Structures are given as structure tokens and as C-alpha cells.
């Protein structure tokens, strides 16, 4: 598994630009945080995000005032944008954990320069995802009913329901991702503490770094803890999207009740997540001139992972289609033919175009080596994975078992404004993170420079 991570002694390490030292790595990364003022690109990006965040807030306030009637959901399509957006966002988060945990266990050095912001992306994506389950009832002030707490009504949640599994999975995922991210940040915040000259940031970074002083005894336990967290996060990330897929699959709705759902959802999540990492990384490395740290090699590997997971998703589509026919169940067969030729057929074929056809370009080394080409493919996948969830939710519900209740579903202005608003919320959080915390792990990047080779030629 370390095929690409062991360059020969003479070969330049493609994971970091040439000529870097402990000093230059520290300077380059920490200066992004410690410099006076932010570049104009930062202000533009954050500004757009901030405006859209306000749109999200307006949409939420209007929702709380008027109720879910402002959305497009109605019987028979009772699950609409809220679940689509929830699944889409939480899926995006999964690439971050995959990069930081699974690639660490597989000793893939290329994770090092992208894991920090990928983890941040996970957290912010989970934050965006978390909004929807809380608000989709229209009564977010009762969201705590989801938790098993002793109450005067003497009731407990139904532990046979996947929706309560979701509460546990998503809250565990958010907590563990936060821990993982924070633990990774501790040594870097100590670096920022030691580098900044201003008293208030010094105090803040000092407290957040918990007084980290780089003791080798501490590093020793730290490394163990970090590896253990990676080992725990790996099955966790799989379990989260598995449980999200159970939300659908344990029901008996045609198109949802499919045993392939767990692995197919997990692959889809990683697929979408890598698309999002590329969507963020490609502009970012350009604006902040980080081509030495996020190299062409990184982009190439991310594109490969995207292609591989995309093909697994394709496998999922194929089995769904084949089994719908093979089952000889009229409801299953109808669901699939409705998906492919019914009123939502254009959406279905658009999703196939985005998720299956567009990624075939990644077979070519030329495309993987062109950031702009990769960016375009990643955008296709971002859209395609959202459409996939739309198709799963809408086509299975809008033709239910009772033909008299058949209807069409579409989002209203408020559905869209909330969804686009969460995009802005995500972007704002990301820009704040870039401004105030090191977006690349400083201490891990140090392990990649030649100085990290220990030579004892003194004695």
C-alpha cells in the first residue's frame, strides 16, 4: 500500500516541493495565519459566504415562523430537500475522515498536506448536515426529544428505528471528528503561540494548545493516541453512512429497500467528498501559492480515488437496475422503469452523466494532471451526487403504493434558499478556519522534509 510513498534516495519527493526545511515549512504555513490582514481573495470568498449565510438565517427564521408548509414537501413526498441535503452534506464530510484516518493507517504520505483542511471540511460539512434533521420537523426547539433522557412522559426513543441510530451516529461522528481535528491541531497551535508577537493571539493559542511543549515523552503518547483515533475513525466513518443508508434501506419502499445500500452509500459519500476536497483544494493552492505542498501528485491521487469510488457507485446503480428486474416484483420493476423513463427521467440521466460518464475522463493521465479539468469533473460529481439523493428520495415516494396519491415533487424558493444558504455557511466556516488556524499540518509536514531523516554521525 505504500507503493507511491517510498521514493528512492535520489528521487525528489513528489509530496513536497524541493528545497524545504523545518524552518521554511513553519514559516510558509504559519504566515498565512499570522500575517497582517487577509488577501483580497479571502475577503471576496468570505464575503460571498457571509451573504449566503445570512440568506440561510433568513430562510430558517421564516421556516420557524411559518412551519414546513413553505417547503415543497407534501404527501406522498414527505421527505424532500431536508433529507437530500442532509445525506449530501454528511457524505461530503466522509472524505475528510478517509484522508485523515484511513490513509494514515495505510501509511500514505500524500495525506499529510491535505488532511488538516479535509478534516475541517468534514466538521463544517457535518455542521451543515446537522442543521437539517434538527429543523426538518419545523419545531427545532423539541429536537432534544431525540435523545434518550429520563422524562416526565416516561417515554424512550424507539431503538429499532434507524432515525435514532442516525442521532447516535451523527453525534458520535461529529464528536470524534472534532477530537481528531483538535488533537492534530494541538502541536500546531503551540507553534503559533511561539511565533505570534501579539499578546491576545498568544494567550488564545497558548490556552488552546494546552501548554504543549513538544516533550518527546508527550509525543510518544500523542502518536499512539493519534493512531488509535485513526483506527477508531475508520470503521466509524463507514458506519455513519451505513446508518444513513439504513434510514432508507430498512424500510420497505421500493428503490430504498436494497441490501446493496450500505456499501454503495459509503462509496458514494467518499466519492462526493473527494470531489469537494478537489473543489476546495484546487483554487486554494493557487490563491495561497501552496503548489509545493499540495502538488500535482496529490491531485492525481485524489482523482484516482474519485474514479475508483465512482466506479463502485456505478456498480451500485447496475445492481439496483438488474435486481429490480430479477426480483420479478412488480413494484420494484415499476420503480426502476419509472426512474428511467418516468417524469424524473431527465434528472436520472443527468445524474448518470455526472456521476458515471464524466468521471471516465479521469482514466486519462492528462485530465488528472490538469487542475482545471479536474475541477470541472469534481463539479460534475458535486452536482451528480446531489441529484442521486434527489432521485432516490423523490422517485421512490412520488409514485407510492396508492396511485390516487401520486404527485410530483419540486423544491420551493425556500428549499433552495436554505440549501444554497448552507453552502454559504460552509464556505464562511472554511474561510474563517483558513484565516485563524494552520490549514496544513505543520508538524506533519515537517516529517516530510529531508531534515527529518535522523543521522547520528557524531559519535
Amino acid at each position, binding site marked *: 500500500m505504500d507503493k507511491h510513498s517510498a521514493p528512492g534516495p535520489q528521487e525528489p519527493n513528489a509530496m513536497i516541493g524541493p528545497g524545504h526545511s523545518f524552518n521554511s515549512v513553519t514559516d510558509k504555513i504559519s504566515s498565512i495565519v499570522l500575517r497582517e490582514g487577509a488577501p483580497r481573495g479571502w475577503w471576496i470568498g468570505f464575503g460571498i459566504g457571509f451573504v449566503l449565510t445570512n440568506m440561510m438565517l433568513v430562510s430558517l427564521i421564516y421556516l420557524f415562523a411559518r412551519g414546513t408548509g413553505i417547503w415543497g414537501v407534501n404527501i406522498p413526498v414527505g421527505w424532500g430537500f431536508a433529507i437530500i441535503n442532509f445525506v449530501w452534506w454528511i457524505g461530503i464530510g466522509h472524505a475528510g475522515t478517509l484522508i485523515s484516518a484511513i490513509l494514515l493507517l495505510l501509511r500514505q504520505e500524500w495525506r499529510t498536506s491535505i488532511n488538516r483542511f479535509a478534516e475541517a471540511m468534514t466538521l463544517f460539512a457535518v455542521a451543515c448536515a446537522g442543521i437539517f434533521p434538527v429543523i426538518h420537523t419545523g419545531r427545532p426547539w423539541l429536537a432534544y426529544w431525540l435523545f434518550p433522557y429520563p422524562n416526565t412522559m416516561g417515554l424512550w426513543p424507539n431503538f429499532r428505528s434507524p432515525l435514532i441510530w442516525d442521532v447516535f451516529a451523527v453525534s458520535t461522528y461529529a464528536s470524534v471528528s472534532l477530537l481528531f481535528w483538535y488533537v492534530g491541531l494541538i502541536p500546531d497551535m503551540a507553534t503559533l503561540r511561539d511565533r505570534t508577537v501579539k499578546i491576545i493571539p498568544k494567550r488564545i493559542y497558548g490556552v488552546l494548545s494546552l501548554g504543549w511543549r513538544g516533550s518527546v515523552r508527550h509525543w510518544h503518547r500523542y502518536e499512539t493516541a493519534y493512531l488509535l483515533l485513526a483506527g477508531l475513525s475508520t470503521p466509524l466513518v463507514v458506519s455513519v453512512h*451505513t446508518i444513513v443508508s439504513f434510514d432508507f434501506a430498512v424500510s420497505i419502499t421500493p428503490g430504498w429497500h436494497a*441490501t446493496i445500500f450500505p456499501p454503495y452509500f459509503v462509496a458514494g459519500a467518499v466519492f462526493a467528498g473527494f470531489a469537494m476536497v478537489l473543489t476546495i483544494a484546487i483554487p486554494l493552492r493557487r490563491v495561497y501559492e501552496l503548489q509545493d505542498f499540495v502538488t500535482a501528485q496529490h491531485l492525481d491521487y485524489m482523482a484516482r480515488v474519485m474514479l475508483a469510488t465512482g466506479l463502485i457507485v456505478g456498480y451500485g446503480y447496475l445492481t439496483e437496475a438488474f435486481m429490480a428486474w430479477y426480483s420479478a416484483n412488480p413494484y420494484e420493476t415499476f420503480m426502476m422503469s419509472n426512474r428511467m423513463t418516468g417524469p424524473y427521467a431527465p434528472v436520472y440521466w443527468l445524474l448518470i452523466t455526472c456521476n458515471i460518464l464524466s468521471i471516465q475522463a479521469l482514466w486519462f493521465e492528462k485530465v488528472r494532471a490538469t487542475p482545471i479539468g479536474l475541477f470541472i469533473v469534481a463539479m460534475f460529481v458535486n452536482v451528480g451526487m446531489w441529484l442521486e439523493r434527489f432521485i432516490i428520495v423523490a422517485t421512490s415516494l412520488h409514485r407510492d403504493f396508492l396511485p390516487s396519491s401520486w404527485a410530483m415533487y419540486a423544491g420551493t424558493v425556500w428549499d433552495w434558499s436554505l440549501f444554497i444558504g448552507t453552502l454559504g455557511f460552509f464556505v464562511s466556516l472554511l474561510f474563517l478556519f483558513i484565516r485563524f488556524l494552520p490549514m496544513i499540518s505543520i508538524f506533519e509536514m515537517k516529517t516530510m522534509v529531508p531534515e527529518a531523516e535522523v543521522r547520528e554521525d557524531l559519535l
Partner: protein
Amino acid sequence: MAKAKLDRSAFMLPAGHHLHSVQRIALIVGIVAAGLTAFGAMSNPVQFFRSYLVAYLYCLALGLGSLGILLLHHVVGGRWGSILRKFLEAGSRTLPMLALAFVPLLFGMHELYEWSHADAVAHDPVIAHKSLYLNSTFFTVRAAVYFLVWITLATLASRWSAAQEEGGGPAVNKRLEFLGRGGTILYAGTMTFAAIDWVMSIDVHWFSHIYGLIFVAGQVLTAMAFMVVVASSFAGRAPFERIMCADRFHDLGKLMLAFIMVWAYFALSQYLIIWSGNLPEETPWYISRLSGGWEHFGSALIIFHFVLPFVVLLSRDVKRNPRSLALVACALLVFRYMDLYWLVVPSFSPGVFTLHWLDFSAMAALGGLWIALFVQQIKGHTLLPLGDPMLAPELAEGAES
């Protein structure tokens, strides 16, 4: 750096290695058991075909699983795969023999598959609907296609590997990588349908989307466990000791653990979804596997195929010691058979536990012959891919000292 010339003969199967005697014993056991099985086939053809199917699927897992791991290795790389590569290639070269061994099943179609009965097709609309896919002609054609794909992949993998060893250079490395990419897709795709054809269609009314993947995971795990046992017999012996070191067995142990978890994950996903859905068209499959004695089999699988190996393989020391790892792998090989038995046989005997002496003799016959053939394939080839760029540093080091 001057390239030290490697002595190929040093990397061949040593004369005194106990794989030679294993081959002799396997061959004798295989031939004797084959005779017994042939006798059983005359007296009880129905039971013979059932027993033969399970044994066949097990040996197929060894051969085809090897191909699967081999192709995967060509995609993702890693030293763990380099040390297994020659064994995996040998395993995948048994596929032509496995294709031959499939032929008896074609004669057993009528005994094994309800859909091959014309009256069933006539009276059951579900079977009639499926007869477009499940009919004896198309079934045979598909099987031929699967084997064609698998044998082609296996042949190319071995041929290009040999070319690499003769100094093929980057062009051959690239070709192998491409083979891995395309081959992994082809393997997963064909095996999915093969699992549907050969096993799932026994319960002709039942269907599960994840079924193919459960088979793929099982095959890969079977082959992995087998190859760990083979590789462990070379640990600590010159000239392999530097390459088949504790670090590599640690990797293999981790991979085995990962495959066990994947298997458990697929199996649990299928069970939980069907259990929760509780649909009359799906649950009978589990009811026939969880009653009349089969339920103990199911519990044993949870404990011995997942919990126990999982806990044992968490230990770093177990993974780093080739002997203890091989012991775990041996146990897994037994439980892999149990899993296959539990997957297949309750379809013929729903809710009534059954075990026939033909189950043992068919497994001994096919298994013995397969092992003999496998060792034959190992002989005459180097045991390490000497042209593998991943191993170049270690091999060069070994040649200098």
C-alpha cells in the same frame, strides 16, 4: 549503482521444503477421495451435486480469490502484495483446471436448480419472468464467458509478470497496472453474476443486491488466509527472511483483519436490512438458515468467523509472528468452509440441518487435487517477483551481502 546479479535459482522452491510432501499427500488424498466421491455420485447423485457444489465453490474461492487479490495488488501496490505475488499467480493459474471442474455442475443443473425444470417455469410466474436470464443455455454461455475472462486475466498477469522478471522495464510495469485496473472491475462484475447464477438462483424466488459482494469478500478472505499460510512456511528461511519479515506479516495480518471486517459488514448489512424489512419474499431465506439446527451454525459463524479472529488479530504480536498468524489463517480457512456451507446447503434443506459423508469426500477430493496443482504451479517459478520495483531495494541488499 551497479546492479548486482540475482541468482534466480536461490529463489526457487528449495528441495527440502515441506510443500513437496504436502503436494504428495494432497495428491494421494485427492485421488482416494475422488474415487470415493465417484462411488457416492453413482449411488446418490442428488447429494453428490450438492456436496460437489460447496466443495467447488470453496476451491474456486482459493483460485479466483487469488486472482482478485493479485489484480487489486496491481492497482494499489504495496510490499505486502509483492511477497505474495508469485503465490497468487500460481493460485490464479489453477483457473483452467477449475473451469474443467465446473463441467460436472452443468450435468447437475437439473438436480440443483429449480428453474431448469420446464414445469416449474410453466407454473410459476416468477420463474417464468426470470427464465429469460435463468435458462440452461444462457447459464452455460455465461459460465463460459466468466471463465474466459478469468483465465485471460490470470494468463496475462502471469505472462507479464514473467516479462517483468526478464527486465521488461517500465512499459511492462505500466501494463500490469492497467491489467489490475481493468481486471479488478471485470472480476467484481463477473463474480457478482456468477454468484447469482450458481448460488443465489438455487432459491429462485429470493434476491439480495449485496449477494455478489458477499461472495467477493468471502473469496478474497479465503485466498488471503491460504496465502498467509503458504508465505509463513518461507518466513525466516534464506534468502526470503529479509523480505518476508515481521513487518510484512504485520501488513498481511492487518489486511486479513480488514477483510474479516468487510465480510462481517456485508453480512450484517444484508441481515439487518432483511430482518427490518420483514418481507415475505425475503425472510424465508434467513428462516431456513436460522432454524432446525442451522441457527447454531449461524451463531458459530458470528463467533468464529468474526468475533474471535477479530479480537485475536487486534494483537500486534500475533500479526507479527508468522506462525501465530498462520494458525489464525488456518482456523479461518475452516470457518470459510462453514460459511459457504451455511450459505448454500440450507437452500436444499431449509430448516433441517444436514451433513453427508459426501460433503467431506467431495471437499477432500477437490481440495487435495487443487493443492497438488497449486504446488505444481509454484515449482518452476521463482517464489518472489524478482522484477518487482517495490522489492528492488531489499533484493539488491540481499545480493550484496
